[in-house]
């Protein structure tokens, strides 16, 4: 196993390029994410946010560039091996294991990504669910959940992988403002436990409150990267969001 120097970045994305036919979704993206950082990823629709995290989680393979996690080059690894190394994600449109209960959904991650005995696994799964406020739904079939419960379950399932890096892809889309606060509080409390989090989000108050650094993508390029207030004040960011 490779252990990185203590001050080395947890995730290094180097000159990443991803094209779909003639369309360049990611154009030469380089960014380092520090251990324990809360990182916001913003950009208008179609700017490449989800493509970037698909390349980080392994759902897509880039044409060029590299992804280095904990000092190890994982560019060619399939998603399940990245999950075992500690990269977990939620999906923009929730993708629960529909034929399973909420608890069983979590057991998948505990079974395959984080080794341990079954008895202990159920305890861990229950403690994650309690944390997420889903304990009362543990035995419920996952296709009977409400939207906010589904979002929380996706995060809980990602947590069951015991991640070092958690990527949340618009976990708050379509939620009411009180629900947004609820999910945001959860993410912030996870960040306090040494889990590095990348959050993709359109809801600006959430991004501002959550992030230590924000990166804005537009048409596959980084147009701003820095502290939240700084990025929001950036002219190009405002243009990308509001149009010229």
């Amino acid at each position: 196993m490779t252990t990185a120097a203590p001050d080395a970045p947890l995730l290094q994305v180097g000159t990443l390029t991803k094209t779909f036919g003639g369309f360049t979704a990611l154009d030469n993206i380089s960014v380092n994410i520090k251990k324990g950082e809360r990182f916001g990823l913003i950009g208008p629709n179609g700017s490449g946010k989800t493509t970037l995290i698909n390349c980080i989680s392994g759902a897509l393979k880039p044409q060029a560039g590299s992804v280095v996690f904990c000092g190890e080059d994982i560019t060619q690894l399939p998603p399940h091996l990245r999950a075992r190394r500690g990269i977990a994600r939620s999906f923009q449109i929730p993708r629960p294991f529909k034929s399973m209960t909420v608890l069983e959904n979590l057991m998948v991650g505990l079974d395959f990504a984080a080794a341990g005995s079954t008895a202990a696994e159920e305890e861990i799964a229950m403690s994650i669910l309690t944390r997420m406020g889903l304990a009362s739904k543990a035995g419920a079939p996952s296709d009977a959940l409400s939207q906010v419960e589904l979002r929380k379950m996706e995060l809980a399932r990602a947590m069951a992988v015991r991640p070092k890096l958690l990527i949340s892809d618009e976990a708050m889309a379509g939620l009411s403002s009180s629900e947004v606060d609820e999910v945001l509080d959860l993410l912030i409390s996870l960040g306090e436990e040494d889990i590095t989090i990348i959050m993709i989000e359109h809801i600006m108050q959430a991004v501002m409150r959550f992030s230590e650094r924000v990166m804005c993508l537009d048409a596959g390029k980084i147009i701003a990267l820095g502290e939240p207030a700084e990025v929001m004040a950036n002219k190009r960011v405002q243009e990308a969001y509001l149009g010229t």
Partner: protein
Amino acid sequence: MNKRSHSIAFWAGIAVFLVAVLSMTQIVRNEYPFFAGYVILQFIALAVAWTILGGYAGYVNFGTNAFFGVGVYTAVALFKATGAPLVVQIAAAAVVGMLLGFGVGLLTLRMRGIFFSIATIALAIIIETFVMNWRFVGGAAGIQLQRPPVMAPFDSYVKMLFFVQAVLVVIAVGIARYIQNSRMGRGLQALRDDELAAECTGVPTLKLKLVACMISGALMSAVGAPAAMYLQYADPSSAFNLTYSVSALAMSLIGGTAHWIGPVLGAILLGSTQQFLAVTISSEVNVLVLGIMLVLFVVGAPKGIIGLLRPRYRLRAGGKQ
């Protein structure tokens, strides 16, 4: 409920089944029940084997006949070349079926849904064509086989084959049950629900599908191996008959694919109906009945017999609710 007491009940049931089958071969004199029962047992084993890939993983395999036929002809070729005993024929068929499952899986399991199914149909046609042109095993005309003398404690070869097929059923059910309760079963269920989400949750989807395809294939070929001795004859168009694929699939779907008991119930129901109809009306009618029952179940009970018996069976694991 307690896992351990479940296991004890299961293996006790298996022991009772095997003892019952064995004593039946010793007591009943008429050969016909064994002749008919063999076919039902054969379909139970085939349906259970099919469910490991088709049900647990959701990859619909139309190539049951390819694996079955490969089992038949592995046994025939081995018997003709070396006169190997039945057990060796079955073991060899299982190995060949497993290798075939590995090869087919590697080539086709990256394809999703309907593409995998189409590829498995093509597989059966390719292998059947190959066997048709293989002189050593009789080619398209088929081959007659002389049964070796029967072994004690059986007094007829058909009775012995009936017992052998019962053992194969036990092996298939034991393996299916083990997979269902294991980590692998959970992984297959996850990838059936959502393959990308499963991958991102740490499930090695391609590896699990491959293993499921190899186990399923090995069992199907093993089940096919005694068929040549049963009929004392083998020919490509009956060994590779599409009916095996359709039946295995229909029996699993009618029984329900989420639990190993599903294909067992489906095969008992359909298999015995077919045997009954073949005797009372005609052997052609049973294909019609198969079709009608499949339509009725798909419309009325999409989760099969087990879905009807326990509509809320999936809530068992959660506790509350």
